[in-house]
């Protein structure tokens, strides 16, 4: 059984005049230590699925199990605080906080002391390949690549093992994109994260252990190059 089990999940946006079924009967599973890519056309429901995995919304029907517990029964704020983090295309750092403050934030939320949080944050910032110079900088003074790396450090600060990302390389050039791809892959393979990335980036998809294709709300498994569909 995977760390995350998605069982027959559907989600509809209830509009005023129409109901949009963005996710339709999706069943899949995600393991620790693996790097997943979800690809698909714009509007196919990828972001919606990610928000369900992040516990930002509950499925209209079906259930997501995390470590055996039903998402609908979890305290989902706590789930995001302790277990799952999301990295976004537009980085979404706190604009008024420095890099260091951004990374310490989740730890201070958890009640850790400032000194301890800063020590861990510095370590995490170093691990995404940024130097001390970045510590006191606010997002406006950083490049996109730097911001996204700080965002990954912040996502790790909470200490959970689920890393979700929505187009994390979408605002970056190829060089920075590749750097982010490699870091996410390392997180899966060396630190045991379940890394689930929604992407248009073919390079990133190539690196993934498994690729899902989202099409009109439905999820299918894509065969990896050199593999057969039956392997999945």
């Amino acid at each position, binding site marked *: 059984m995977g760390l995350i089990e998605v069982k027959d999940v559907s989600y509809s946006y209830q509009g005023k005049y129409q109901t949009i079924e963005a996710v339709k009967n999706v069943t899949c599973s995600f393991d620790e230590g693996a790097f997943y890519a979800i690809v698909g056309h714009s509007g196919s429901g990828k972001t919606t699925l990610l928000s369900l995995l992040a516990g*930002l*919304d509950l499925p209209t029907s079906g259930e997501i199990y995390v470590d055996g517990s039903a998402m609908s029964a979890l305290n989902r*704020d706590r789930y*995001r605080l302790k277990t799952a983090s999301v990295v976004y295309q*537009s980085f*979404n*750092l706190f604009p008024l906080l420095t890099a260091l403050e951004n990374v310490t934030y989740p730890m201070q939320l958890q009640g850790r002391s400032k000194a301890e949080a800063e020590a861990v944050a510095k370590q995490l910032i170093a691990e995404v390949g940024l130097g001390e110079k970045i510590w006191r900088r606010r997002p406006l003074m950083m490049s996109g690549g730097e911001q996204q790396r700080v965002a990954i450090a912040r996502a790790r600060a909470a200490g959970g093992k689920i890393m979700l990302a*929505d187009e994390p390389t979408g605002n970056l050039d190829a060089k920075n994109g590749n750097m982010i791809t490699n870091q996410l892959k390392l997180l899966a393979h060396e630190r045991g994260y379940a890394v689930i990335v929604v992407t248009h980036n073919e390079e990133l998809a190539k690196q993934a252990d498994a690729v899902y294709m989202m099409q009109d709300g439905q999820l299918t498994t894509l065969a990896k190059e050199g593999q057969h569909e039956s392997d999945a």
Partner: protein
Amino acid sequence: MFNLMRNIRRQGFKSLLVCFIGILLTLFLSLYLGNIAASRKELNHLPEVLPVASHITNISGSKSVGLLIDGGLIEKIKATNMVNNLRYTVQLSANFAPETPEEELGYKYIAIMGVNDISAFSLLSAEDIEWADGVAEDFLSGRQAGVIVQENFLENNDLNIGDRVWLSLYSIDYGEKLNEIYYKKIDDIALEIVGSYALNVTQFGEFILPDMICPVGWVEETLQEYDKKFYADSASFVVSDPLKLNDFKAAMRSFGFQPVNAQADSYSLSGFGLLVNDETFVRSAGSLQKNLTMMTVFLPLILLLIVLVGYIASYLVMQSRRSEVAVMRSLGVSQSRCILSLSAENALLVLLGCLVGLAAAVSFTGIGLSGALVITAVFFVSYMLGVVAALLKLSRMPVMEVLTKSE
């Protein structure tokens, strides 16, 4: 909470704006509530500033002395507790007993006035009286058998303070049609002269100036002793609670008093008219009351306005922090904690503004500590109600949508 001060500092201009709103609203509320308090105070003090005096007249209002006022009515008025400073007088006549025959009374007439206070007789004041040793002003409000005598009368009759005079006393009656004067003998009675007084006038219209003044209480007691009815000659008083003027008037009506009517018989001596000098009071109290009612009626609207300003101000100021709140939610901060920390920022700023506003208000108006506390509490609760409502609305957002919308 660890971000509180930092956030406030970094919001810079917006923090100042919220603070400034706090100042303005507090100032406004202070002036408003201060106005209500001042009006209420003024209304409560109005009876002292504008006492409502009243006196008994005949039915046409043409006479207020020389009346026949039933003693029972005086007792009833006393018993209502609705009047203060009840002053009343009585007239008696006398001659020196026993040598003077009854038929000569008409011209050897001694006029005696009974009063219950110096002020009951408008021509007399405390300085005009010289008292015997050991006797003081409160003699007149008592029941002692004694008189004070007009200086000239003392001189003309070779009398001195401390002497006893032996008088044949007559009560005055006015006959059935109240247009003839009768004297009815009470008895020959000895009275001690306990003082003298000087009158600055020798003539006062048709009013007969008294040769002697005695306590009206003694007259009442004596008449009762001799089984004769007591009629007061004049009576006046002050309405003790003019804010309940209507109750007072109703009570007086129930005793048989009527508002004066200039068309009525102006020769009548019967004391059934009631003149209440309440015009100024009623006019002032009326306008105060009207203002007070207006301001009280509008108070909930004012509070609603503060709630609304709190709502709109924080909604607008927080609008630019929508994505910040979304990030907080994404990082696992619960909605209630978001609201709490953001309202704490607002609360701190607006309290700061409130204090500055209060300081200004205190120097403009004379609000005390309790007033300031009330204003702070009322303002703070109202404003924060608006803030929390705005934050509730703001924090209930589709987090993913906010964070994935590319700016």
